[in-house]
């Protein structure tokens, strides 16, 4: 199984990648997903997280097969 990780907007440009597949056979924390997908240690405080296209907080667990996205504050409308 794998976890699909997406980055959007300024975060995508800063990291130089838009999506990453992580191998995962057991649940991971958001912090672990961030570290493995971004190559950075700490999840910046203003980065928003979604799991399977629903907002999640930094304490959520990610299951194998999930889609996780990291993105900056939204600016639509």
């Amino acid at each position, binding site marked *: 199984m794998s976890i699909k990780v*997406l980055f*959007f*907007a*300024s975060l995508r*440009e800063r990291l130089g990648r838009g999506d990453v597949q992580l191998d995962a056979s057991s649940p991971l924390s958001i912090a672990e997903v961030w570290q493995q997908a971004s190559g950075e240690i700490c999840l910046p405080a203003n980065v928003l997280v*979604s799991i399977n*296209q*629903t*907002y999640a907080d930094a304490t959520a667990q990610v299951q194998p097969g999930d889609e996780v*996205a990291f*993105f*900056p*504050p*939204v*600016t*639509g*409308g």
Partner: protein
Amino acid sequence: MIAVELHDGSFDPWRYLTDWQQTRQLSARSGATAVFVGTMRDFNEGDDVQSMYLEHYPGMTENQLHAIAADAQQTWSLDDVCIVHRTGEIRPADAIVLVAVWSAHRAEAFAACRHIMEVLKHHAPFWKKETLRNGTTRWVDKNTPG
């Protein structure tokens, strides 16, 4: 009824509402329609803006907009809600967002329309990147206040 649409090209909000109305003309059930249209300006934070790119999260963006509309229908007594939002390359004076709410009561229509806009601004996954007149680009890092 709830309608959510993303447009990767310019749309005319009044044309959209004309078409919407034509399909519902005979029901005559909504006494109050409240509408908000957000339009791209040619300046922001003191700089001249030439164009804007609006990135979104395909799938999640539509789901969020639908959830925002459904939530408003739970809170207020609404007949119909429609949310139309641009994506992609946008020019000054283009419509960015249309929110329209139909209700039997004007207070509910106004309150729901305004609420939907505020929630959309804070929760719908869209990101604006501006191209200034001098050619530089920048991500808009926060929304304008309510």
